[in-house]
């Protein structure tokens, strides 16, 4: 299993790298979509069908938004000359970061053997008692429903914020004293 996961994660990395370094906005957005789809396959393989569906649907939506946001510039090419100096610094910094993390990983609990102290308590409840056979949904809406309320609020908040940011007139200019005078 580890090998398949590594291959798919490698594909996500490759697609993200293409997305980061592509010269056209449209190809950036599309390769980002490819990375998201690979991630959703990983979710499916690791026993999370809910997340696989969510990832696919959200991915599609993000693509639509980004393409809409880029508007008429989507066909324009940009960054004709790449800054090799910044790339070198980025690679160096990333290398240091990963090396530091590598030492920390040795004390992490390994892949495939989670502790599950909390989740065993969740799993011991019968579906009849908690009202859901899908334990992810039970965790989301019964045990930790308060978090889900927060999550919906975050989404609502960002949408209200986006609509507020995008409105045409922000200030009423001629109320009280004229600001420009």
């Amino acid at each position: 299993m580890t090998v398949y996961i590594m291959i798919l994660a490698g594909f996500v990395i490759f697609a993200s790298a293409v997305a980061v370094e592509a010269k056209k906005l449209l190809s950036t957005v599309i390769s980002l979509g490819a990375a998201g789809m690979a991630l959703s396959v990983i979710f499916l393989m690791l026993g999370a069908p809910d997340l696989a569906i969510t990832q696919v649907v959200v991915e599609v939506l993000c693509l639509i938004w980004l393409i809409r946001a880029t508007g008429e510039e989507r066909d324009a090419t940009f960054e004709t000359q790449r800054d090799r100096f910044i790339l070198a610094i980025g690679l160096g910094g990333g290398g240091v970061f990963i090396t530091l993390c590598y030492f920390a990983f040795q004390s992490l609990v390994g892949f495939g053997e989670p502790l599950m102290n909390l989740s065993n308590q969740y799993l011991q409840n019968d579906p009849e008692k908690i009202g859901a056979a899908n334990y992810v949904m039970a965790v989301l809406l019964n045990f930790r429903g308060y978090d889900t309320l927060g999550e919906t609020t975050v989404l609502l908040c960002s949408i209200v914020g986006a609509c507020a940011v995008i409105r045409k007139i922000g200030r009423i200019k001629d109320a009280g004293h004229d600001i420009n005078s």
Partner: protein
Amino acid sequence: MFNHSFLPYIMAFVIFAMGLYTVVCKKNIIKIIVGLIIIDYGVNLFLILIGYRTGGIAPIRAAEMNAEKFINSSVDPVPQALIETSIVIGLGVVALTAALAVRLHEKYGTFDTTKIRKLKG
């Protein structure tokens, strides 16, 4: 000793670092948004890797399944719930940044941060 049980974690952190690099070094607003999305991918991948149990099944209990067997073979549902929340928050961030990007594009006619006054550096 080469312990390869944490190799997948490194992949997640590589994606995370790549997103950080994009956010910090790229000079285009859309690229920065893409970087934020990639960071999100890294976080989600790391969370799902934490919750996996070797040979585990999805945490959905079918009607005829034995409770004991289910508890011993299901993957961890908690990180999945956390990822669901994290995905939603990521979606919200993308919505807000896209709105801001569109607005900035209207003001400046460009997505290039070097041409926008305060976003330098």
